């Protein structure tokens, strides 16, 4: 069969970073190609080159047998290439329908955008791809991250494309949503002969969906596996360049350790109601639940974002009626936000300042700031957490996603907090880094730090936590521990 897109020896550099070196890839119609690689391997760069958003230095592409050199995004789109981008680029004030149909050619009638048609089409598309009913006129900025991600997925799937590229499309989705999405993808592939390129850090997803997997490392092709050759072990070895030992949490019995944090019947209107739990010193406590279950609202409330309206949070015996960020920090609580880009990093500050910022924020305004001190701290943390940095004076944006995430953790670890609240600690992070972050968390817990984490990846919670609170529609369903801590239980309580 004639190949749909063939990429040959593409190279691309940004300044003195070689993002891609002689990368090649081949995809036929009716085929799903998996694209794997650690953070910064060049996956998104390749995607952006294929869709015309970036130029490249050398190499060739051909599309449907003809030489292909897109000069911009709309050019690629008009040829039937449609892309879901990793950064979830939405226009928050526009409606879902507008975001779905946004482009150089907005459906219109006599020059006027045809909202009726778009709204109706939008409803149909959601039914078809996701089996969901929605109101397409809601401004998308008011939707959750998952809903936004779904909207952009509907968008790419609706374009009648011949080649669809999905760059980490599932990071905000829950398992059932992922399943529905995968069903649609398979259906489109079979019924319409569409080719897919699928980028993900989750090996299970990759292996489940893909027909072939290409692996990139440091901007180069390092492997190409056919379906029959798929194995998690081999894949992770190719991605990381070494074998990764995934460690499970060896559950400890800490039930008689002192209580570090206790939530006493906390509620937040429209988010969650009457949640109680207590976490012991040195424990890793997980909070699970589907999107919209109130999981991330509960965990961010522990850091005052916003504080619960009712109930109280007791931290090491101190009752914080209303908990605020500064009170939480003073009480030794650290918080890792779920969205690194908008809530975590300071793109124009260097790595040392990014790591040192919390201790800087806690020092008096007129304290002298000596960069050398913070460079030392940064170097220290870099060794401890094996963050790959060449110079702490570089901007943090020079780091790969996984290393940025470790730097975010380092920000708090530098203060040796007694409680760490982690919201999606490994979102968008590659498997090697994920394993390392898990190790860091275990070490912290071993040293007596209390960890409370929320994640949309149930597997991750199962691997890492001593106990898991399962939430469903704003309410606590159960706290699973020891023997009851199984995948089946987790799913059962989360979905019931």
């Amino acid at each position, binding site marked *: 069969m004639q190949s749909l897109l063939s990429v040959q020896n593409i190279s691309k550099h940004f300044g003195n970073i070689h993002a891609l070196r002689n990368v090649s890839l081949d995809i036929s119609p009716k085929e799903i190609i998996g694209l794997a690689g650690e953070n910064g391997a060049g996956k998104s760069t390749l995607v952006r080159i294929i869709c015309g*958003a970036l130029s490249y230095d050398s190499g060739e592409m051909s599309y449907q047998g003809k030489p292909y050199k897109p000069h*911009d*995004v*709309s050019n690629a*789109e008009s040829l039937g290439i449609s*892309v879901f*981008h990793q*950064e979830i*680029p*939405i*226009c*928050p*004030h*526009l*409606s879902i329908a*507008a*975001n779905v149909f*946004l*482009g*150089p*050619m*907005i459906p*219109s009638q006599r*020059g*006027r*955008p045809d909202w009726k048609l778009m709204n109706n089409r939008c409803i149909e598309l959601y039914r078809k791809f996701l089996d969901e009913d929605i*109101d397409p*006129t*809601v*401004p998308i*900025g*008011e939707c959750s991250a998952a809903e936004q991600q779904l909207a952009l997925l509907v968008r790419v799937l609706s374009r009648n494309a011949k080649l669809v590229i999905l760059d980490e499309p599932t990071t905000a989705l829950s398992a059932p949503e992922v399943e529905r999405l995968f069903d649609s993808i398979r259906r489109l592939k079979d019924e319409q002969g569409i080719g897919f390129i699928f980028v993900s850090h989750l090996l299970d997803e990759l292996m489940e969906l893909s027909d072939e997997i290409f692996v990139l490392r440091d901007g180069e092709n390092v492997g190409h596996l056919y379906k029959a050759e798929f194995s998690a072990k081999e894949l992770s070895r190719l991605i990381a360049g070494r074998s990764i030992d995934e460690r499970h949490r060896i559950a400890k019995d800490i039930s008689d350790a002192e209580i570090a944090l206790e939530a006493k019947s906390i509620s937040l209107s429209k988010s969650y109601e009457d949640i109680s739990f207590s976490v012991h010193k040195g424990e890793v406590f997980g909070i699970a639940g589907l999107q919209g279950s109130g999981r991330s609202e509960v965990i961010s409330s522990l850091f005052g974002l916003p504080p619960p309206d009712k109930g109280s949070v007791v931290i090491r015996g101190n009752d914080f009626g209303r908990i605020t960020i500064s009170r939480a920090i003073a009480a030794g609580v650290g918080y890792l936000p779920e969205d690194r880009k908008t809530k975590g990093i300071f793109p124009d500050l260097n790595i040392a300042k990014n790591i040192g910022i919390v201790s800087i924020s806690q020092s008096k305004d007129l304290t002298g700031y000596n960069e050398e001190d913070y460079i030392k701290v940064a170097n220290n943390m870099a060794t401890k957490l094996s963050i790959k940095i060449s110079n702490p004076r570089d901007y943090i944006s020079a780091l790969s996603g996984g290393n940025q995430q470790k730097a975010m953790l380092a920000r708090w670890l530098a203060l040796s907090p007694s409680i760490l609240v982690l919201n999606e600690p490994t979102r968008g992070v590659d498997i090697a880094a994920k394993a390392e972050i898990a190790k860091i968390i275990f070490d912290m817990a071993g040293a007596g730090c209390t960890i409370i984490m929320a994640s949309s990846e149930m597997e991750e919670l199962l691997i890492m936590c001593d106990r898991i609170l399962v939430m469903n529609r704003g309410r606590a369903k159960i706290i699973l521990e020891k023997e009851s801590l199984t995948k089946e239980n987790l799913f059962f309580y989360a979905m019931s």
Partner: protein
Amino acid sequence: MNKSATKNQKNKSRIVLGRDIGVLIAAILIAVFFTIASPVFLTAYNFFNLLRQTAQLGIIAMAMTMLIISGEFDLSVGAIYAVTGVVTGILVKNMGFNIWPAALIGFLTALLLGFVNGTLISTTKINSFIGTLSTQMIFRGIAMVLSQGQPISFLQSSIFFDAFGRAELFGNIPVQIFWLLAWTLISFYLLHRTSFGVKVFATGDNRLAADLSGIKTMSIKKTCFMITSAAAGLSSLISLAFLKTVTPTQGSGLELEAIAAGVIGGTSMSGGVGSILGTFIGTFIMAEVRTGLVLMGTDAYVQDAFVGLVIALAVIINVRFSISKDRT
């Protein structure tokens, strides 16, 4: 399910009028206040006076609103306003042109300056505050040099002056009001009823997202700059026809007023949010306050202070209003 359904109802009403209703109420309240304070406020004469003021600023403010929605703004608009008038003036006065072609050339000059702004900002990606501040100084210099600092008067009569600024339709409606309404309709249609409008919103809302969906954000911005300069040109011709005179210093400060009118009307300085009707009412509020204060006999020294106060209040109310809506 139920919850999200009621939420949707609310949202729908917002798209149609919600955002503008706050400003509208403010405009009415202010009118009521001044009517009580001064009996003259609510007369046809005064009303047309108000609208005439609204015309000149409003045409520019509505275009500026589009530009702000697209994520930029233009501090040189007052200088473009001056250049248009001066170019037209010297063509007529020193070079013996007929007023019609002279005005056309003046208008085209405005477009050209808008093109310069658009190209400067969209290709170098410098911030529009500083970019258009510098072109403001340059354009103003052009007006000064061309006119040698002198005002230019038009002594001849031509139907041009009637058509653009002097005629009174149906006996007492100043022709400016016709231009204002025409421009409002065109802008409204362009921004709220065409694909171009949707692209303008998208560009200002999230440039990256717009780029990645294939919208040529650079050319959208450039077009918005040119629409703004066209508005400055038109407004300048209207003022020229009305006054039969132009000065090289005219229009200074107009840019800030135009931006303020837009923001009072609910336009967000960070782009992606705004409406033509809101700006229309915003401009009307500015004129109301200015005129009302004069009618009440307020001290000349505090008038601007009051206008400032009203701007601050209007914006705070609008922000509160839209925050509380957005956060539900």
